[in-house]
């Protein structure tokens, strides 16, 4: 069972229906008990960073998510959920994140149109189980204005080019971040979610 953290902002229904099409059981929850019992956690993400962190704090989930992530339980942050894995974000004033990954989230420089919106191609840097069956250059759907600007390069699994190099998939142990929306990226995205489901022991 995957616990999808339901902190109130954005579209999470699509994520849940994508998982159910793959026969991966999931539930939307904010219950500490359910999150602790779950085999894996997805921190989804459409929304604004400061608002989302405020919601997590209000729900009393910040320290719980940190401790769950340290238990080697598969933990996936998607889009804003990936950004929240980092130390801070510039979105909504410098705002602290969960700090699971080193680095800062910054606005995409305006040498390109911001937000980065649409299908862009993956440049794969490391072959990891999460990207099993995914070809170099596969198109996936991005919708974001901020990105993980200063992260550890050893965590970088795949990136894409949009004015700058945008980390697209990051991994540190069993904690994963995906900047694009796998639930909106057609069969490529579904394959990635399926791969994540297979990490659950």
């Amino acid at each position, binding site marked *: 069972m995957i616990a999808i953290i339901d902190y109130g*902002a*954005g*579209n999470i*229904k*699509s994520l849940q*229906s*994508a998982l159910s*099409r*793959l026969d991966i059981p999931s539930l939307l929850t904010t219950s500490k008990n359910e999150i602790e019992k779950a085999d894996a956690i997805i921190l989804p993400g*459409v*929304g*604004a960073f400061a*608002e989302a962190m405020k919601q997590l704090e209000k729900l009393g989930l910040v320290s719980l998510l940190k401790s769950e992530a340290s238990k080697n339980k598969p933990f996936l942050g998607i889009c*804003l959920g990936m950004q929240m894995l980092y130390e801070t974000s510039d979105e*909504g004033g410098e705002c602290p994140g969960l700090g699971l990954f080193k680095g800062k989230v910054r606005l995409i420089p*305006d040498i390109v*149109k*911001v*937000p*980065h*919106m*649409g*299908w*862009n*191609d993956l440049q794969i840097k490391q072959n990891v189980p999460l990207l099993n069956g995914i070809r170099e*250059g*596969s*198109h996936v*759907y*991005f*919708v*974001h*204005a901020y990105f993980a600007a200063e992260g550890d390069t050893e965590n970088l699994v795949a990136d894409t*080019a*949009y004015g700058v190099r945008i980390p697209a998939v990051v991994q540190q142990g069993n904690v994963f971040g995906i900047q694009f*929306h796998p*639930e*909106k*990226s*057609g*069969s*490529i*995205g*579904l*394959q990635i979610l*399926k791969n994540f489901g297979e990490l659950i022991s």
Partner: protein
Amino acid sequence: MTLTKRIIPCLDVDKGRVVKGRKFKDLQDVANPITLAKKYDEAGADELVFYDITASNEARDIFVDMVEKVAAEISIPFTVGGGLRTVNDIQKVLRAGADKVSINSAAVKNPQLISDAAAKFGRQCVVLAIDAKQIANSWHVFINGGRVDTGLDAITWAQKAEKLGAGEIVVNAIDTDGEKNGYNLDLNRAIADVVNIPIVASGGAGSMQHFAEALLGGKADAALAASVFHYEEIDIHALKAFLRQQDIPIREVTANEF
């Protein structure tokens, strides 16, 4: 490589059915929105737009129900618009499964709706639709389904909306809408030149060449169309192959195994 240009079928929905009109009038029933959405997803559409053209409140529930069904069936992003007046209205359709919302008349009447929605949901999901029509030497913003001239300059409004937090602008040219003689490239370019957010060209697609013009000379990041897709005058596969031949970056679609 680079960010690809998007092809976006637009579905106008009235009481749960897709309809199509010319210049916002003479509506005709076309299809079931979910069947059509799945078909476009499989054909390689990069995104979809559902526009609720129903005015009544009871029909609004039918529409939200449809949004939920669409979200369960397709795995590409979609935008929902029509009749969204408050942050609450927006939250309702996002919770139902929409990825972005398109606001139009309500933003003209209350520009703060753009900033409030951007602060709460992130600016990437706030799309401003501008219905514009040429009046003398400028383009005016029209509201209420193209019926009311606000006198507002479309270019100025686009710039203001970007500052307020709009993440994308759909430029809908009333003059060319439904005529199938091509997008309004001048209007599109005029807006693309003054903002730094994605621009979606809308209104007037009749041939594959029109899409290429919008994405090249019209400086659009995406091109939206309705009837040419609904009536199968243009096949999305063939359109994307045509655009690729002109060196326009276009997403390749792999067969959906799920």
